[in-house]
C-alpha cells in the first residue's frame, strides 16, 4: 500500500542575490526631463496618464524602462499611453542611467492616492486579500521578493488601465517578460468591473492609512 510520505530528509543550498550600486544623485539629474509628465516629485499626473513613480521599487522601475526600450512594453497595437512613454527614453542612454534614475525615484516618498468613488471597501478587501495580496503585499505595498510592484498610492485610473492591458494582452505576453506574464494570469481573477473598482478603492485606502 502506498502512503503519503516515506521518510527521507534532504538538505539544500541557498543562493544569495547579487546587488548593484546605483548612483541616485545622478538619477535625480537624469530625471529632469521626465518631470514634464510625471511631476517634479514624481507624484504622477493623471491628466497626462503619467503614473506615480515616487517610492516605487527600483528593480521594478528599471525593468519597466528596459521593457519599454526593448518594445516588450508599450509597443502593442492599441497601447497609446505605453507608446507615449516609449518615445521618452532618450534621456536614458544606457543601463547605468536607467538604474540611477530608478534608484532616485525609489528613494522619494510615495504619495497618497485619491479615494475611489463608489468603491465598496469591504468587498474590495475580500477580493484584494484573496486574489492580489499574496504577491502585492497585504497593504499593497509591493513585494520585491516576488517582483510585484507597489500599488498603494498609484492613481486608480492608471491601475485599472494596466489591469485591463494585462487582461487584453497589451502587456505581459512576451516570452521574455516573465513577471508580466505572471500578472497577466491574475488579470482575469476578478469577476468584473465592479469588483475591480472595489479592489482599487481598497488599494487607495491603504495609501491613506500610511
Amino acid at each position: 500500500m502506498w502512503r503519503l510520505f516515506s521518510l527521507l530528509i534532504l538538505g539544500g543550498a541557498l543562493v544569495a542575490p547579487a546587488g548593484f550600486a546605483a548612483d541616485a544623485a545622478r538619477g535625480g539629474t537624469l530625471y529632469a526631463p521626465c518631470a514634464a509628465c510625471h511631476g517634479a516629485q514624481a507624484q504622477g499626473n493623471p491628466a497626462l496618464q503619467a503614473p506615480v513613480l515616487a517610492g516605487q521599487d527600483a528593480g521594478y522601475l528599471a525593468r519597466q524602462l528596459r521593457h519599454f526600450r526593448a518594445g516588450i512594453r508599450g509597443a502593442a497595437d492599441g497601447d497609446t499611453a505605453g507608446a507615449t512613454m516609449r518615445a521618452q527614453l532618450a534621456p536614458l542612454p544606457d543601463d547605468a542611467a536607467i538604474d540611477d534614475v530608478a534608484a532616485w525615484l525609489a528613494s522619494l516618498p510615495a504619495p497618497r492616492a485619491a479615494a475611489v468613488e463608489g468603491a465598496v471597501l469591504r468587498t474590495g478587501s475580500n477580493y484584494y486579500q484573496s486574489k492580489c495580496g499574496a504577491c502585492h503585499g497585504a497593504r499593497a505595498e509591493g513585494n520585491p521578493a516576488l517582483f510585484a510592484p507597489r500599488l498603494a498610492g498609484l492613481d486608480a485610473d492608471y491601475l485599472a488601465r494596466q489591469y485591463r492591458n494585462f487582461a487584453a494582452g497589451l502587456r505581459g505576453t512576451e516570452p521574455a517578460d516573465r513577471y508580466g506574464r505572471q500578472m497577466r494570469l491574475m488579470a482575469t481573477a476578478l469577476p468584473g468591473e465592479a469588483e475591480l473598482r472595489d479592489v482599487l478603492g481598497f488599494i487607495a485606502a491603504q495609501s491613506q492609512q500610511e
Partner: protein
Amino acid sequence: MTRTIVLALVLALVGFAAGNWYAKPRAPAQEADAARVAASYEGGFRADGESAAAVSERLASGNITAVAGAPGEHEIVVADGESIQEAVKRAAPGTVIRVRPGTYHETVYIDKDAIRLVGVIEQGRRPVLDGHGKLNDAVLYSGNGIVVENFTITKYKGNGIMGQAGNNFEIRNNLIIDTGVYGIFPQLGKNGIVEHNVLSGIEDAAIYIGMSDNIHVAHNVVFENVAGIEIENSRHAIVENNYVYDNTGGILAFITPGLPIKTTSDVIVRNNFVVRNNHPNFGAPGSIVAGIPAGTGILVMAADEVVIEDNIISDHKTAGILIVDHANAANLTIDPESDPNPDRVAVLDNVMYRNGYDTIPEVKALMLAGMQRGEPDIVRVGPSTGSCILNRSRYVTVGLDDFGVCGFGNTDATVTYLLPPVPPRVIEPGERGKIAYLGICSGCHIYGGRMVGPPVQAIQALYMDDPQALADYIANPVRKRDDYPEMPPQNYLDPETRLAVAKYMLEVRN
C-alpha cells in the same frame, strides 16, 4: 468556578423571565414546540451497503469508543534522551511505542499503519515534545490506525499533531500549548476520535477537522486560540462535551471555499460549554481565520445540517450563534463549486445568556433595519433554507423570521458516527500528487483565497509551467512574504511525490 456559573445561570434565568415578559409575542408558541420534542434527529449516515435499520441501530448503540483496532503485541520503550523517530523506524505495524517522561526535540513522522504512540505519565510527568520555536510539526502521520496519546506538545511553528489521509485515528489526552497554526489537525481522514485534549495558544484552529468524515470530538478543553474547534469541509461529525472558552470563535462548522472537497454537512454540536469567546483575533490579517468576529460562540458558515443542542452558550459580545453565508463573510470570495448557504440548520434547546452585548456593526445595522432591539443571542445573515429553531421566544434573535419549528427535539438517536475500523483510503498509482495535495497542501492553501499560505491561483501564476521549480521550493522553502508565516519544508516527501504534487498544484482549477 461551578458556583459562579450556577449564580450566573440564576441571574440569567431571571433575565429570561423579564425578557419573555416584555418580548412581543412571536408566531409559534412554546407548546407547539414541546409537542414535537419527542422525535430525534437522525443524520442517516450509511456506510457502504448498510441498510436503513442497521444505520439506526448502529447510530443509537453508541458502543464504538475506539477505532484504531486492538494494540499489537510488540512494544518499544523510548527513554528520555532517546529518539522517538528512531523507534518509529524500527517499529513494525502493530507496535505500541511507549515514550517515557522527558523532553524530546524532534518531529515524529509516522508513515506506517497501526502504530500507537503512547506517552507514559508518571506522577504527573509526561513526555514533552518541544519544538523550541524552530521545528515545524510535532507529529505527522500518514498511516492508518494511528494513536497518539498522553503527550505535552509545545513551541512548534506548524502543527501539533497532523494527520495526512490516515483513517481510524485516535488522538487523546494530549496537552498542546503555544504551538503553531493548528493544534490537532486530521486532514482527509475517515473514522477518527479527538478526545480529552487540552489546547491553548494556537494561531489558527486548535482542533481542525479538515476534509474528513465520521469524526468524534469530545471532552476537550480549548481556550485562548483564534478558532477553538473547527469542522471544515467535513461530514458526519459530533462535537460534544467540550469546554471551549476565551477563543476568538468557539465552535465552527463551515465550508472554506477553494478546497478540493466542497461540502460540510451533518454536524452535531451538543452538550458543550461555549463561554466568553471574546479573544482579540490574532490570526494573520487578511486570512480567512482573521475574518472571524471576536465574540462568536458558535459559527455556522455555509455548512448544512448543523444541529445545535443542549449547549451552554454565554458571554459572547458579537453573538452566541452566528449563521452566515459566504457572501457575507469576511476575507473570502465565493467558490462557484460550493453552495455558499448554510441550509437546514437546527437550533434545538440551548441555554443562552449575555450574548451580543457589543456586537459588530453589520449586525447592528441588521437590527436597525428590522427595528429590533436587545442583544442578540442568535444571528443569521444571508440565505438559509429549511432551517429551524425550538422555543425561539427564549432568545433574542436576528434574521430568523423564516426559520420554522424543528420537527425533532433532540439528537439522542445518534450516539456516534464512528464505525468499526474502515479500510485505508485507496490511492491509485497515478493519484500520488492529488492525494498529497489534498492531504497536506490543502491544510494551508486554498485555490482562490488566503488561508495560511498564499492562494493556489497565485502560485500557478508564479510557477506557470515549471513544476520542478515548485518542487524545489517546497523541499527547501525560503521566506518571501512578511505577512505570512513560514512554509514548512516538505523534504520528508520523496522527490517523485514532491514533483507529483507540484504538477497537481499547477493543474487544479478550483
